[in-house]
């Protein structure tokens, strides 16, 4: 079965989630991966969106972090202050799933500005929930498309702390959680080196070469001694993902009917 690099990336990310994880889900690629996991090997995965929906089981991917589909399928919906106080800061989340515009060799994420803050080259959306997601979930998974502009030696702006300047810098900021333990891209899977915390390639997707990853990474990227090959998507995974995407495209293109109530 043929598949795209984005499909490979989404499938590889989905596989990292366990059935009993409680996952704080970012919109876009993280949401696709989390819902794919729920629709395949992790049916009991708990998805939490920062809009307050706990245990959402959307039939189509939400466009926003607060589509009605999330609330309608959730176990319960709490206020946003409660979400950030009792659930995220309360230490109830096992995995935070983030994307961003830039990630650096120590897993720090920038979603604020490219260029200087006061005279930005590109003004990005900003932190949203990501700053505290990054420090308060047990561990962080990152999903991003590989490019030298995205994978940089040092982010222009640390929106979300990863491993800081490496080593135990995260601890020096008073943060006790694991931080980024996994980065999934359209080319490979990376994990932080146990000592230095530098992101290191541990698995190449099918058909991807070391040279391609080196070319697309903004720092002299290291590879694990025992470099693995990511198993390609199975037919089950691809079918589930494509059906989800097709349902989603149909739902979002439709100018939706107002369902009245009056």
């Amino acid at each position, binding site marked *: 079965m043929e598949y795209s690099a984005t499909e490979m990336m989404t499938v590889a990310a989905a596989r990292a989630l366990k059935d009993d994880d409680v996952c704080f889900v970012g919109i876009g690629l993280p949401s696709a991966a989390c819902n794919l996991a729920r629709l395949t090997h992790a049916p009991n995965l708990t998805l939490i969106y920062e809009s307050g929906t706990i245990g959402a089981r959307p039939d189509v991917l939400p466009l926003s972090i607060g589509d009605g589909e999330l609330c309608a399928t959730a176990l319960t919906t709490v206020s946003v202050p409660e979400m950030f106080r009792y659930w995220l800061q309360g230490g109830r989340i096992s995995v935070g799933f983030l994307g961003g515009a830039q990630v650096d060799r120590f897993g720090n994420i920038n979603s604020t500005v490219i260029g200087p803050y006061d005279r930005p080259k590109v003004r990005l959306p900003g932190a949203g929930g990501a700053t505290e997601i990054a420090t308060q979930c047990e561990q962080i998974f990152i999903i991003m498309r590989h490019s030298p502009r995205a994978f940089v030696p040092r982010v222009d702006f640390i929106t979300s702390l990863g491993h800081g300047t490496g080593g135990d810098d995260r601890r020096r900021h008073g943060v006790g959680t694991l931080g980024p333990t996994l980065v999934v891209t359209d080319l490979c899977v990376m994990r932080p080196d146990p000592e230095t915390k530098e992101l290191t390639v541990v698995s190449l997707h099918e058909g991807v070469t070391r040279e391609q990853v080196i070319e697309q990474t903004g720092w002299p990227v290291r590879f694990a001694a025992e470099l693995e090959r990511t198993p390609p998507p199975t037919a089950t995974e691809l079918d589930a993902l494509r059906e989800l995407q097709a349902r989603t495209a149909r739902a979002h293109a439709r100018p939706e*009917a107002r369902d009245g109530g009056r």
Partner: protein
Amino acid sequence: MVAFLSLREAVAELIHDGDTVAMEGFTHLIPFAAGHEVIRQGKRDLTLVRMTPDLIYDQMIGMGCARKLVFSWGGNPGVGSLHRLRDAVERGWPVPLALEEHSHAAMANAYAAGASGLPCAIFRGYQGTDLTQVNPNIRFIECPFTGERLAAVPAIRPDVAVIHAQRADRQGNVLIEGIVGVQKEAVLAARRSLVTVEEIVDDLRVPSPNAVVLPHWTITAIAEVPGGAWPSYAHGYYTRDNAFYTAWDGIARDRDTFLAWMREHVLDAPHRPAVARPVGA
């Protein structure tokens, strides 16, 4: 005593040039109709507060209503940038826009502190982020029991909070249901509050004793504005117009297209909520 007013009257009476205004609704129940009325009335120099500026503030910023934005995530959800927000920040068009930038956790805590009558909120956050370098309203205190360093931000206390809700009864009690965001906090934190509702009814039809209800004595004015949250949505009434959110990217990318859309759908269309119209562009 809560006043039942037309949207035009309510915006004219409650919102003044230079005010700090929080129009809240986390993806759901965004008070778009009220934002459009603010634009039609040509309000200026507003400090706009909102966790997720969304299209509503993109429109108000693009029409020159704001001089400052306090926010934590400024994008078109799932689509991309807010082009009018970026144009104001990057090129000062139509007027320069100052930013006070936070994380969601900080804003949510700051609203809760405002509702709680506290001067500040404390939380565990902002460790290792550069946001502390660019926002002097992020400070730190020490826990007097453990010595732990905790982040502190000032409470949000807007002059006016504007929200949209499902319905009000004739006494002025308001029901909010579904994704409730920070709307209750915004209203309780503000000096004045305007609630637009889908309908005003005899029986509020509260689904449970623990439903999110704002008593009438917490609200300054209520305006009945069916469809007032479009293109966002009202749980139980209509769904989110995701196609319009996607289309907005094309409308807002260019100053002239944007102005033409605003003229046709907002400036020259007083008092009629945009909800009934076909998706623009």
